[in-house]
């Protein structure tokens, strides 16, 4: 056992340098005020006060959380049936469909989002087709619809894969037992399959909600400059205003919100799964 522990050493060094150190820097920046150099550090809570006391930032935060929740909900509603259907196909066909689902993720997300710009634009593909049958044009770009669409499109593979994995891992004999005991298909789905696949849904939620709440280029490209989410505010603070302290403070607030939501989902995960096993 001991010799294995020393083998983990490089990994610990890596973690310390690449994950812990930057996080500590963000915390340090967040709790200090502007114009610090290494010699003089002045701690302050001003950055947080500025963020929470500002009506505009609060509404941006609300909008970001709202968009992320909507995106996650749509990903579950569309992703679950897709994962369910794929999981119940033959081995060969499963591989093919999963390949199709993951195929787009081989291409850079930015490039795919640019492609959506071309599709949704006023003179884009959809409106061009509509004009051929004498309809439109419909404004789609620079709307909430476009932003949510872009996010769902980019993040739904994570949801499908997570649910698919938990569904395929499921022991099929539970279903046989359920039907032996007289459950019909709907009952056995609701009382066996669904509870057992909740862990997949939960990790899918984490994988979709996290990037959705902090994404800044999808709202920028598909929502236009007027569509400001919290990620865009952080980006502006770092790149345009150069106020790293305030930017770090907002990042830290987001990190705490995300940690808290992960804690909540984790809690939700342990409860129904246990119930599910009892029911089964």
């Amino acid at each position, binding site marked *: 056992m001991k010799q294995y522990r020393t083998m983990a050493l490089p990994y610990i060094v890596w973690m310390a340098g690449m994950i812990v150190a930057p996080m500590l820097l963000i915390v340090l920046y967040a709790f200090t005020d502007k114009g610090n150099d290494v010699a003089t550090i002045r701690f302050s809570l001003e950055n947080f006060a500025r963020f929470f006391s*500002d009506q*505009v*930032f609060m*509404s*941006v935060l609300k909008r970001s959380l709202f968009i992320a929740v909507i995106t996650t909900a749509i990903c579950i509603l569309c992703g679950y049936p897709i994962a369910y259907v794929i999981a119940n196909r033959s081995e060969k066909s499963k591989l093919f469909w999963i390949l199709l689902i993951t195929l787009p993720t081989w291409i850079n997300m930015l490039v795919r989002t640019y492609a959506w710009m071309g599709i949704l634009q*006023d*003179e884009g593909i959809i409106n061009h087709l509509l004009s051929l049958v004498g309809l439109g044009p419909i404004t789609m770009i*620079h709307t909430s619809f476009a932003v949510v669409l872009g996010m769902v499109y980019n993040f739904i593979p994570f949801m499908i894969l997570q649910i698919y994995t938990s569904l395929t891992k499921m022991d099929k004999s539970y279903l046989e037992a359920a039907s032996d005991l007289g459950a019909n298909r709907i009952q056995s789905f609701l009382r066996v399959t669904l509870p057992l696949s909740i862990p997949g849904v939960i990790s899918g939620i984490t994988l979709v909600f996290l990037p959705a709440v902090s994404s800044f280029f999808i709202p920028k490209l598909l929502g*236009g*400059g*007027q569509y*400001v989410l919290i990620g*865009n*505010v952080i980006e*502006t*603070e*770092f*790149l*345009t*205003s*150069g*106020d790293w302290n305030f930017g770090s403070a907002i990042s830290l607030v987001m990190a705490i919100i995300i940690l808290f939501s992960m804690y909540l989902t984790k809690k939700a995960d342990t409860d129904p799964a246990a119930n599910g096993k009892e029911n089964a």
Partner: protein
Amino acid sequence: MKKLIALALGTAVLLSGCGGSADSDAAEKYGSATLKLYNWGEYVGENLISDFEQEFGVKVIMEYFDSNEMMYTKLQAGDAYDVLIPSDYMIERLISEDMLQTLDLSNIPNISNLAEGVKQLPYDPDNTYSVPYFWGNVGIVYNHNNVDPADVEKQGYNLLLDTDYKGKLYVYDSERDSFMMALKALGYSMNTQSESEIEEAYNWLLQMNDTMDPAYVTDEVIDGMINGNKDIAVVYSGDATTILAENEDMSFFLPAEGTNLWSDAMVVPANAENPLLAHEFINYVLTHDASYDNSETVGYSSSNQEVLDEMSGADGIYAQNEAYLPRTEYAKDEVFEDNPVLKQKLAELWIKVKASH
């Protein structure tokens, strides 16, 4: 298939072989045969780089930035480039922070080609650190079929508050340009430091945001206006040149309240690895042919007087284009000054304008 790969490999070897001999000459002369150029996207003539590489037997590595601030952040992080092309106020900041090398003008004889409009610019009057690349104004492009030219002339920037044109405008998504327009509309200097004037400008922008439903864009504005998606846009004169050249329904207007007289110039950062070649490149850009290529491809106003005259002259490609030749010597036009504190404040106010609806 195998044959094809062999052929490709052979060509590659051949090419690198050719390059090799030229490289060694250039390397001897300049210390290294590579020039690292950090430039705006789509901001160079289509043949300029390859011509320069061929003529001097060197290799140019070009990277792109999309804001002065992004460039500054990378430079601060220690990235080394030989030539940068930032804007006026950013050059002022780089000079004040000792991040630039002084230029040896004896190695840049073509400096005598500089256009009158870019001589003795306030941030670097003697070209100690910088040599202008492109320059221009910021003005209003409008569709003269849908917008009454009389309205444009009468209202100037306040056209952007005229609810007759609600939902028909593009505004450039940058705090400097939007506050410039608001401050000028209110009759103030765009370099103001007065809290109350900035507050008024902020409210002007809020009113625009709330009542006019503007689309905030950056480079998309060019295609958008060429396709006639909207009727009004506040744009850089160089982009206006391109728009006017492609869509004859569009006109260009410089408001009487004044505007931003801007310039982007070539500078050599203090940590440049190949300053000799950097001087050679700066000198090359000022030649007639290179500058013509630049201005023809990009549409921005040349910093070479001869090219400027030729292109805007009767037989020039921009003869009928009212956006190409920048307005100079107009008292209300100003050059941006560097003021990091003000800039930061405006950046934050601007994101609040955009977020408030």
